[in-house]
């Protein structure tokens, strides 16, 4: 009995002393560690920061509702359905004095017209990187199907990205909700298999810098990292139009520390912090005050901040409603086919 009382007392004491933990779920290579350390130090809390490879993994994990993350950073195409499913909490902007640092053009997108739920984090493009010394010039998505690119392409593991550029190559919208078009895209994707050397979204630069890949469908941030070290690579915006994406932080419904989450959101909106992250991550910041603090070289990097004409031609990946399942189904069939083919050739 005494032992039980002691246990109870010590548990209470421990609980009282338990430090607060802020749990963040984010893409890999998408944060400056110093920002986390600084936040933990300033607020005397523990920060748990877990990484995922693509939106699908994120989607799976947070819809299971078990993990108890406070913040996550999904892409635009997921947000609408999260809002609809009630998975998000509204963000109290009175607690985000630095929210005004965000540039107006990035706000009030169709999926969250009043930015009640989202705090834009980064935006960027999906284009093609290739080794100009090994590969004939690539100018379009359609070029990826060229015979001379056999077994040389890296594509990402996010199905919306992959279907997005395939639909584009067919002249359709990357957000197509026409089953027929999606089916056509699936069939075209099957024809790409001989050219695909790997599917992966983790440590993307490594594929080109270490593993000798010569072509890839990559985010501009990764492309920048590769080209900074190997100038022989080139990043192109395909003529059908690049894919544009916007990632935003959301406050999850199961958050145990919404106060802390707001503090964190405001911290990363603060201009110098935001700039530091932008420099490290290599993507385009929607934070206009932070942009001003970037070094000139970054500001003028056309890979990160492309010309407006290119942006005008590109398309933002958005939610596709009920068609999402169709995409997923085709994606599963495609990856199965891909794996079988790879096994066969081995």
């Amino acid at each position, binding site marked *: 009995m005494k032992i039980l009382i002691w246990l109870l007392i010590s548990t209470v004491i421990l609980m009282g002393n338990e*430090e607060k933990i802020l749990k963040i779920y984010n893409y*890999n290579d998408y944060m400056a*560690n*110093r920002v*986390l*350390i*600084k936040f*933990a*130090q*300033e607020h*005397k*809390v*523990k*920060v*748990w*920061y*877990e*990484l995922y490879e693509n939106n699908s993994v994120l989607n799976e994990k947070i819809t299971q509702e078990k993990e108890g993350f406070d913040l996550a950073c999904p892409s635009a195409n997921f947000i609408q359905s999260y809002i609809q499913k009630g998975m998000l909490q509204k963000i109290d902007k009175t607690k985000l004095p630095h929210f005004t640092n965000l540039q107006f053009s990035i706000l009030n997108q169709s999926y969250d017209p009043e930015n009640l739920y989202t705090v834009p984090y980064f935006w960027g493009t999906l284009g093609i990187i290739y080794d100009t010394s090994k590969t004939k010039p690539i100018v379009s998505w359609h070029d990826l199907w060229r015979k001379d690119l056999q077994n040389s392409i890296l594509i990402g593991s996010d199905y919306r990205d992959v279907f997005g550029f395939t639909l584009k190559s067919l002249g359709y919208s990357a957000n197509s909700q026409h089953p027929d078009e999606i089916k056509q895209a699936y069939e075209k994707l099957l024809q790409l298999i001989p050219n695909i050397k790997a599917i992966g979204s*983790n*440590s993307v630069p490594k594929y080109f810098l270490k593993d000798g890949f010569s072509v890839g469908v990559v985010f501009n941030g990764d492309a920048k990292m590769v080209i900074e070290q190997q100038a022989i690579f080139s990043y192109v915006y395909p003529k059908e139009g690049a894919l544009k994406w916007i990632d935003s932080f959301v406050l999850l419904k199961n958050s145990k520390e919404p106060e802390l989450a707001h503090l964190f959101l405001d911290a990363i909106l603060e201009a110098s912090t935001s700039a530091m992250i932008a420099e490290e991550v290599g993507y385009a910041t929607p934070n206009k005050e932070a942009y001003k603090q970037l070094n000139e070289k970054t500001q003028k990097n056309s890979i990160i901040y492309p010309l407006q004409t290119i942006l005008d031609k590109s398309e933002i990946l958005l939610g596709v409603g009920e068609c999402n399942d169709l995409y997923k189904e085709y994606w599963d069939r495609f990856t199965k086919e891909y794996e079988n083919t790879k096994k066969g050739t081995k």
Partner: protein
Amino acid sequence: MKNKTYSFTFSLTFVFASLLITSFVSIILYNYFKTSSDLYAISKNVNKEIRNTVIEKTIAQLEKVATHLKVLCKADNSSDILKNKENTLKIMWEQLNSDETIASIFVADEDSNFIQARRKPAFATRVIETYENTRMELFEFKNSDYTTRAMETYISTYNPLTRDWYENANQKDTFYWSGPYIFASTGQTGITIAYPNIDEYGKKTKVAAADITVDSISDFLRTQTKVVGGDLILLGVNNEVIAASFLDKIDKQVNGKIITLKELPLEYYGGFAPLLASSPLSGDYVDTKGDEYIYDVSTFPTTFSKRWSLVTFVKKDTLLASVRNTVNEMLLISFVITVFFLSIIFYVATKISSPIIKLATAMQHLQKMNLDINIEDNSVIKEIKVAQNSLMSLQSGLESFKKYMPSELVKILIQTNQEAKIGGSEKHLAVMFTDIESFTTISETMSPEDLMIHLSNYFEELVPIIMSHKGTVDKYIGDAILAFWGAPLEIEDPCLVAVEAAIAMQKRLEIMNDQWEREGKPRFKTRIGIHFGPTLVGNVGSHERLNYTIIGDSVNIAARLEGINKNFGTKIMISEVVNTHIQQRIATRYVDSILLKGKTEETKMYTIEGV
């Protein structure tokens, strides 16, 4: 003192059985002890090699890690470890992956900055640095390809400068090896090796260290139990159980501390500690259950910084199991062979002894003058056959001898184990004298040969009657027979028996005479005289040839009485003294009185009524 005697079969079987069993037991015992000592020796050698291998492997393992630490320090010549932390972490990561025994590898500098790569509870890197005057800790949990899976950051409470490994290494110029202990983070057993980096000015700038698990040594020891034939224990300087082949079966820690030899359960050598403290490096150990072990201790070489030791325990039973099996098999085989041989020996012994036993029985019969026995001569063994034949000769010899000598006399001689000697004694005997009437006349009518046969037939009929009446035939005198009663066998009422014999003889003769007459042979009319009186009886003659005979007046009186029959036409004439002895039983008739030669008074003579 009486000699104990045993039957032939028993003796033979016993001797052979003893020989067989003795030789089998000797061979088995020799084999057992020889093989056992050989096995001990082999096991000792094998185990010594295994212990050395284990020791070498352990040292190599630990020293490899020590080299890692040197490499780690030399790879970054800056005194601020944070400057090249990414590079340092990569090297640590490589080292961690190259060697499974490294649980953790880490480095700290004088500013208490700290970099670590660790294996458990999950692959992670850890950096502790000062940020805005606060020591902040950053864990990066890694996938196997070094990509980050998650991060964790918080205010650190860990100060490497106060840690044993840092303090100890910093005081030394070379490696510091901790004693074995239980890693709090993983529960594994291990040691920490720390290496102080000294820069070109001789200043200690940082300390690199590694936690090395020794659990894999237990795994390795376990693989050696079959070869050793028992358990192995690796002991620290203070007899901590660093590793043991059975460590997976017991609790390896006591109150968070590594278990020591004396804290081991009794069934796992818990009672060995006092023995190790006081005894030589090898010997016998008996545990509480009474199981016997041979133990051997090898100490780590002095070149290694810790005087650890490795002990092997081999259960004697296990070691000798195969020998014991062989002994059991040999015992079984020996038993079968012995039984098989014994039955053969028994059969042979019986086969040999049966004629010998029969011989012995026959000899006993002969000794009693029972000559009417059948002696076999069927033995296949030469010597026995000779004995059988000799005995048969003896039998027939005695048979003949009996005819010359009173068989009772011979029997007495044999039974009393005496030789016949000259000399005699006076005894009261009934003396019978017979004679055939007109034998001379009859003899003239027959051929000598026919006469001899006829006479022989006559004796053949009468002598057995005398003998069956316990009489002794002294001699034949022509057609006369001299016989007496009372010697050598003392008999009751010799006169009566003698007279009864005489009556029987006359009756028999009546029958025989009728038969002879029918055959055309002459009748024999026999007259018998019987007297009773003191008579000298004994062996008379020379040493070469003796006669057992009677001498004296009685013989003459008997002869006289026989002759007097002629005058009265009687067939049996007895003296007065005989009559006195028998008249109550046999009817007699007074005939006459005569004055016998040398007597002053007349003696009355009687004949038997009805003869």
